[in-house]
C-alpha cells in the first residue's frame, strides 16, 4: 500500500532505510527465511528418496533375553549357506536385523532362520521387515521416510467384530454356576436351573426366608448388579440386573484382553510393525504389513481355543453339578467345576512324547493355577482327570430379515474331551497333554502362549494386497506424479515465461514441503494419498495463476512494479478464501471418511497449507529477486 510513497522517496534520491525499500524487494532476512524453510523441507523430504532394504528381524520371545553376536553370526551363516546374500547385520532395540539384497529372499530367508534357530533353548520370532537406508546424519536429525500403506507395501487389513452378546452370555452363565454352588453350600432351596435372561438373572425360591437369606449371601458376588426381591404368583424370587456401567467395564476388559492376545499372536506370526487397535465400542482393527499368506494369518488370529481341566464325577455326585461328554465312543460324566483353565497357563510348547513319538503340549501354570492343580490332585490320587478342548468356530446361517434372505454370522462352540487319565500322583506347575493331532497341538501351544481371547470375534472386513500389486501401485504412483508434475511445469513455463519459472520453482518447493510435512507428521502414504499429491500439483499452481492474471490486469493501468505489488496483494484475499473452504472439505473428508478416503484427505489438507505458503512466500520472493528493485519499462506475463 505504501508503494507510491516509496517510489517518491527514491526519486528524491534519499538513502534507503529499512522502511523505505525499492519496490518489490524484501529485506535480506525475509529471503533467508524462505530459503531456510525450503531447505529444511528438502532435508526432511530427502529420506523418501532412499529405498528401504528388505530385512529379517530376529527377536527373542522373552524380551529380557539378550541377543549376542554369536546368534547373529549363526543366523548370518545359515542364510549364506542357503545362498541368500546378507550385505549387513546389526543388533539394536533388543532385536537382530539382517539386511537382504533381494525382496524374493525374504520369505525363504525366514524359513531358513526359523529352521536354524529352532533347536535352541530360547524361543525366537523371525519377522519380515524393511530397514531404512537413510544416511546416518539424516537419521540423527530425526528425518525419516513416510511409511507405506498396505496398498503399497502389501499386507492384510482386518476389521474384527467382537461378539459381545456371546461374551456377556457366557459371563452370565458363569455367574449362574457360582451362585448355584454358593446356594448348595449354604443349603438354601432354590427352584429351576435356567435363571439367565440377557443381562438379568432371576432365581426363584420356595420360601421368602430362603430368598432373603440368599440375597445377603449373594450380595458380594453380584457387585455391579442391581438386586431386587420380587413376590409374584406367590413365587418369591431374587433378581439381579447388570448395571450399564458394569456392562461397559466388562466389555472394556474383554476388548483389552483381546487386544493383548492379538498382539501376542501377531508377534508369533512374524509381523514387524503391526497395528492392533480398538475401533468404536466393539471392533478391532488389525493391520499386518508384509504378510503374504492371509489365510494362515486369519486362521491364527481369529482362533478361539481354550482348555479346561476337570475331575471325573464320582457315582454319588449330584446331577446338577455334572455334565456328560462323549469320549472314545462312550459317555463320561464330569464335574462342572473347572480345576484350572487355559487362562492360567504361562508357558506352552508343542513337542513329542519321547516314548510314543506322539505330539504333545508341555504346559506350565501360573502360581494360582499350580496351587489349585496341586490341591485338587493331591486329594484325588487314583481318581480320573479330564481335559476339555474348546474351540469357537465361525458359522453362518441364512435367516429371513424383513422378508429378505440374509446371511447371519455367529460363532459355535465346539467342546471335545481330549483326554481322560488317572491321576497317578499330585500334579504341580508343569505337566504334559497328549491326545491331540500335530496341527491341533501346535496351534493350541501357540494360542495358550499368546493368551486366550476373552470374547470370540469374527471378521467383518478384510483388505489384502499382494506384494506384486503393491509394487505396481508404487510404480504407477511415482509415474503419475512425475508425468503430472512435468506437464504442469512445462505448461506454466510456456504460458508465463519468467513468472512461469518462478511458479515452477515454487511448485518444486511445494512438493518437497508436502513430502517433508507428511514425513514429519508420520503420515502413511497410500495410493489415494498419491492421488492427492498429484491433484495438489495440479491445483497448487492455481494460487500463482490467480496472482499472475491479477498482475496482468493491473498492468493495464499501472506501471509494472506497482502492478506486481497490486497483483500479489489483491490476489491474497481470494487465495485465502478459496483455500480455507477447500481445507474445510479436507477436514470433513478426514473426520468422516475411512481408509482410502482418509489417506487422500491428509495429503489434500497438507497440500493446501504448503501451496498457500509457497505461492505467497516463495513465488513472491522469486519474483522480487527477478524483477524487483529495478526500473521495468514493460512486463511480459
Amino acid at each position, binding site marked *: *500500500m505504501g508503494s507510491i510513497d516509496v517510489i517518491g522517496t527514491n526519486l528524491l534520491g534519499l538513502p534507503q532505510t529499512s522502511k523505505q525499500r525499492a519496490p518489490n524487494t524484501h529485506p535480506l532476512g525475509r529471503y533467508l527465511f524462505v530459503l531456510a524453510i525450503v531447505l529444511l523441507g528438502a532435508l526432511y523430504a530427502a529420506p523418501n528418496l532412499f529405498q528401504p532394504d528388505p530385512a529379517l528381524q530376529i527377536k527373542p520371545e522373552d524380551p529380557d533375553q539378550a541377543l549376542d553376536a554369536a546368534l547373529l553370526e549363526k543366523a548370518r551363516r545359515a542364510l549364506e549357506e542357503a545362498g541368500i546374500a546378507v550385505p549387513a547385520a546389526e543388533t539394536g532395540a533388543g532385536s537382530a536385523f539382517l539386511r537382504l539384497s533381494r525382496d524374493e529372499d525374504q520369505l525363504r530367508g525366514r524359513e531358513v532362520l526359523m529352521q536354524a534357530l529352532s533347536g535352541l533353548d530360547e524361543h525366537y520370532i523371525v519377522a519380515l521387515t524393511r530397514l531404512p537406508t537413510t544416511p546416518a546424519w539424516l537419521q540423527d536429525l530425526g528425518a525419516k521416510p513416510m511409511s507405506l500403506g498396505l*496398498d503399497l507395501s502389501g499386507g492384510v487389513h482386518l476389521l474384527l*467384530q467382537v461378539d459381545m452378546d456371546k461374551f456377556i452370555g457366557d459371563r452370565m452363565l458363569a455367574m449362574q454356576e457360582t451362585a448355584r454352588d454358593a446356594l448348595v453350600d449354604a443349603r438354601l432351596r432354590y427352584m429351576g436351573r435356567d435363571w439367565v435372561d440377557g443381562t438379568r438373572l432371576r432365581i426363584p425360591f420356595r420360601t421368602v426366608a430362603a430368598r432373603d437369606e440368599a440375597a445377603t449371601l449373594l450380595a458380594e458376588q453380584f457387585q455391579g448388579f442391581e438386586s431386587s426381591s420380587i413376590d409374584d404368583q406367590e413365587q418369591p424370587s431374587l433378581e439381579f440386573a447388570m448395571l450399564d456401567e458394569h456392562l461397559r467395564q466388562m466389555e472394556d476388559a474383554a476388548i483389552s484382553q483381546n487386544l493383548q492376545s492379538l498382539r501376542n499372536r501377531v508377534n508369533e506370526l512374524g509381523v514387524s510393525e503391526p497395528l492392533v487397535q480398538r475401533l468404536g465400542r466393539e471392533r478391532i482393527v488389525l493391520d499386518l504389513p508384509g504378510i503374504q499368506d*492371509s*489365510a494362515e494369518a486369519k486362521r491364527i488370529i*481369529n482362533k478361539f481355543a481354550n482348555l479346561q481341566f476337570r475331575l471325573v464325577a464320582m457315582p454319588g455326585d449330584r446331577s446338577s453339578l455334572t455334565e456328560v461328554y462323549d469320549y472314545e465312543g462312550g459317555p463320561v460324566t464330569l464335574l462342572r467345576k473347572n480345576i484350572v483353565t487355559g487362562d492360567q497357563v504361562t508357558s506352552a510348547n508343542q513337542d513329542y512324547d519321547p516314548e510314543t513319538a506322539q505330539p504333545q503340549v508341555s504346559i506350565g501354570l501360573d502360581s494360582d493355577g499350580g496351587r489349585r492343580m496341586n490341591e485338587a490332585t493331591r486329594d484325588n490320587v487314583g481318581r480320573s482327570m479330564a481335559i476339555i478342548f474348546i474351540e469357537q468356530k465361525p*458359522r*453362518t446361517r441364512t435367516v429371513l430379515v424383513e422378508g429378505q434372505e*440374509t*446371511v447371519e454370522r455367529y460363532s459355535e462352540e465346539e467342546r471335545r474331551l481330549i483326554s481322560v487319565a488317572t491321576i497317578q500322583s499330585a500334579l504341580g506347575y508343569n505337566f504334559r497333554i497328549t491326545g491331540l493331532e500335530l496341527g491341533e497341538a501346535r496351534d493350541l501351544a501357540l494360542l495358550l502362549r499368546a493368551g486366550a481371547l476373552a470374547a470370540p470375534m469374527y*471378521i*467383518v*472386513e*478384510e483388505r*489384502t*494386497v*499382494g506384494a*506384486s*500389486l503393491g509394487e*505396481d*501401485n508404487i510404480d*504407477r504412483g511415482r*509415474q*503419475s*506424479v512425475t*508425468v*503430472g508434475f512435468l506437464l*504442469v511445469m512445462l505448461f*506454466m513455463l510456456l504460458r508465463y515465461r519468467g513468472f512461469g519459472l518462478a511458479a515452477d520453482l515454487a511448485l518444486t518447493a511445494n512438493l518437497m514441503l508436502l513430502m517433508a510435512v507428511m514425513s514429519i507428521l508420520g503420515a502413511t502414504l497410500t495410493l*489415494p494419498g498419491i*492421488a492427492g499429491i498429484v*491433484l495438489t500439483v*495440479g*491445483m497448487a*499452481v*492455481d494460487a500463482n*495463476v490467480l496472482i499472475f*492474471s491479477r498482475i496482468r*490486469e493491473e498492468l493495464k493501468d499501472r506501471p509494472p512494479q506497482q502492478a506486481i505489488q*497490486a497483483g500479489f496483494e*489483491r490476489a491474497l*484475499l*481470494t487465495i485465502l478464501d*478459496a483455500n*480455507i*473452504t*477447500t481445507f*474445510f*472439505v479436507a477436514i*470433513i*473428508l478426514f473426520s*468422516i*471418511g*475411512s*481408509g*482410502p*478416503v482418509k489417506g*487422500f*484427505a491428509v495429503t*489434500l489438507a497438507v497440500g493446501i497449507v504448503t501451496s498457500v505458503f509457497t505461492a505467497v512466500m516463495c513465488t513472491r520472493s522469486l519474483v522480487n529477486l527477478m524483477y524487483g528493485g529495478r526500473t521495468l519499462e514493460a512486463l511480459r506475463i
Partner: protein
Amino acid sequence: MNLPILDFMAKRKVAGAGSIALLLISVASLTLNGLNFGLDFTGGTLVEVGFPEPVDTEQVRSQLEEAGFVNGVVQHFGSDREVLVRMPPQATGDPAALGDRILSTIQAEAPDAAMRQSNFVGPVVGEELAESAGLAILTALAVVMLYILFRFTKQFSVGAVGALAHDVLLVLGIFSVFQWTFDLAVVAAVLAVVGYSLNDTIVVSDRIRENFRTVRRGTPIDIINKSLNQTLGRTLVTSLTTLLVLLALLLAGGEGIRGFAAALTIGVVIGTYSSIYIAANILVLMNISREDLLPPEKENAKESYP
C-alpha cells in the same frame, strides 16, 4: 494474449435450461438405474488374481461355477493376465474365508496364479460405509454454505451450494447412466470435486463482490459479466493444469485409481462450467444488488486500493 470480452450472461437462460435438463436426466437415471455400487457399499468378496499368461475369463468362470460358487462376476482387470472375481455372500461357509476358497479353486487349475488383492466387506460394514459417505458429502455442503454465508452474503452462499450440488448430482448421474462402479474412492473424488468447484466459485464470487463495490456503473448483469471475463483466464488455466495432472493419473495411475480419476476429470469440467453459469445465475435469480454488498466502513478502507 487477450481474451475477447464474452457476453456470458446473455446465454444464461440457455445454460440454465441445459443444466436443468441434465439434472433431470441425472435424477431420472439415479432413481431408475441407481448407482452401480462397488464392494465397499454392497458387501461381498472381491479377489484379483494375476496369471503368468493371458487367461480367458470364461474358463475361470466355469471353473468357479463347477466348484459351486454362484452369482459371481469374472472380468479382466487392467490386462488380460489379471482377473477380477466379485462374489456375493454365499449360502454356506465362512464368508470371511470366501476369498481364500476362490483363490485355492483357481490355483488348483493354475498353480502359478498369484493373489494380487483380496477384499471382503461384511454387509453391516458396507451399510456403515455408505452412510458415512453420504453424511460426508452432506456435511461438506452444509459447512461450505455456512462459511460463505459468513464471508459473503446469503445470495453467494446459495449460489455456491447450488453450484456444488449441481456438480455432485451430475457426476453421480454420469456414473449412474454409464453404470460405472461407484466405490469409496469415487466418493473421495466427489468430495474433491466439491473442494475444487468451490475454489472456482469463490474466486468468481470474490471478483463479483469486489466489482459491485468498486464499479459504479452498469446493471448487476453487466458487473457479473465483467467479473466473469476478468476471471476467465485464470479459471481456464487452472482447469487446464488440473486436467493435465488428471490425465497423468488416468494414463499412468492404473486400474485401481481409474474410477477416482474419471470422477475428478468429469467433476473439474462440470465444476468450471458451474462456477461461471450456475453460481452467477443464482445470484441474478436472487436479485443481487449493490446494496447487499456495501461493506462495513472499516473493511471498505482496507479493500479500496489507492
